[in-house]
């Protein structure tokens, strides 16, 4: 059987890849997708701990993370549509109305 470390390292790597996506991409939709990737990396640690500690609580936590992620995706995409209508662009670099 695989030790718990391997699952945690895998999810740390996937989380770091998601962070790269948020930092370097210049398309709002892809940034939102990278956030979903990070949430899933965390879900993987929840499920791994739930299995290795023999408790269902981790799975319930993942259930709630999914509900929050669905709400986040819906609101995020609605904001993206709204921003695109005003600025005709998905580039976060061009959204600097509040910048001095």
């Amino acid at each position, binding site marked *: 059987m695989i030790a*718990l470390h391997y699952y945690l390292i*895998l999810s740390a790597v996937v*989380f770091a890849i998601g*962070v790269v996506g948020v*930092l370097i991409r210049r398309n709002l939709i892809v940034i939102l997708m990278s956030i979903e990737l990070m949430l899933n990396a965390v879900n993987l640690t929840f499920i791994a701990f*739930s299995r290795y500690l023999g408790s*269902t609580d981790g799975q319930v936590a993942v*259930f709630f993370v999914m509900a929050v992620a669905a709400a986040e995706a819906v609101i995020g995409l609605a904001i993206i549509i709204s921003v695109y209508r005003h600025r005709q662009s998905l580039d976060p670099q061009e959204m600097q109305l509040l910048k001095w």
Partner: protein
Amino acid sequence: MDTASLIFYLLAALLVIASLLVVFLRNVVHCAMALVSALLLIAVLFVTLQAPMVGVLQVMVYAGAIMVLFLFVIMLLNPAALERQRGLWWGFGAMLALMLAGVLVPLVMTNDLPADPVAATELFGSPEMLAKSLFSDFVLPFEIASVLLLVAIIGAVVLAKREN
């Protein structure tokens, strides 16, 4: 090497490749497809970790509903122009992520973690067990989650509505 570890290494390699594709492909639709495959691979990992119910939810909610929503928005906005790249930012982001991984991985290695899973009962991860936990210990968060989803629906309708 036994079959379980072989399956894990295969899934882990594919998952890392799919995640890298999400970040580094330049066409948004291709990114979305890579993300679907990453989510499906995570669902398979859930099933190997005795969480079949959560795995099914993952396929239905994430790879199904949320990704359809993403693709719908991509089609609606049609971001045809490929984004410009900036060499400096790519290096900066990659460096920060390496630092993050360099902090997280040693942290995992130094901790005293269980090497073997607890012997699971037949019911572990089944809908019955999940529902029992959800409707006894976690009733209040469950109800709050329903309110949250309602707020999200109303917010999405208000935000995406055409102003005139």
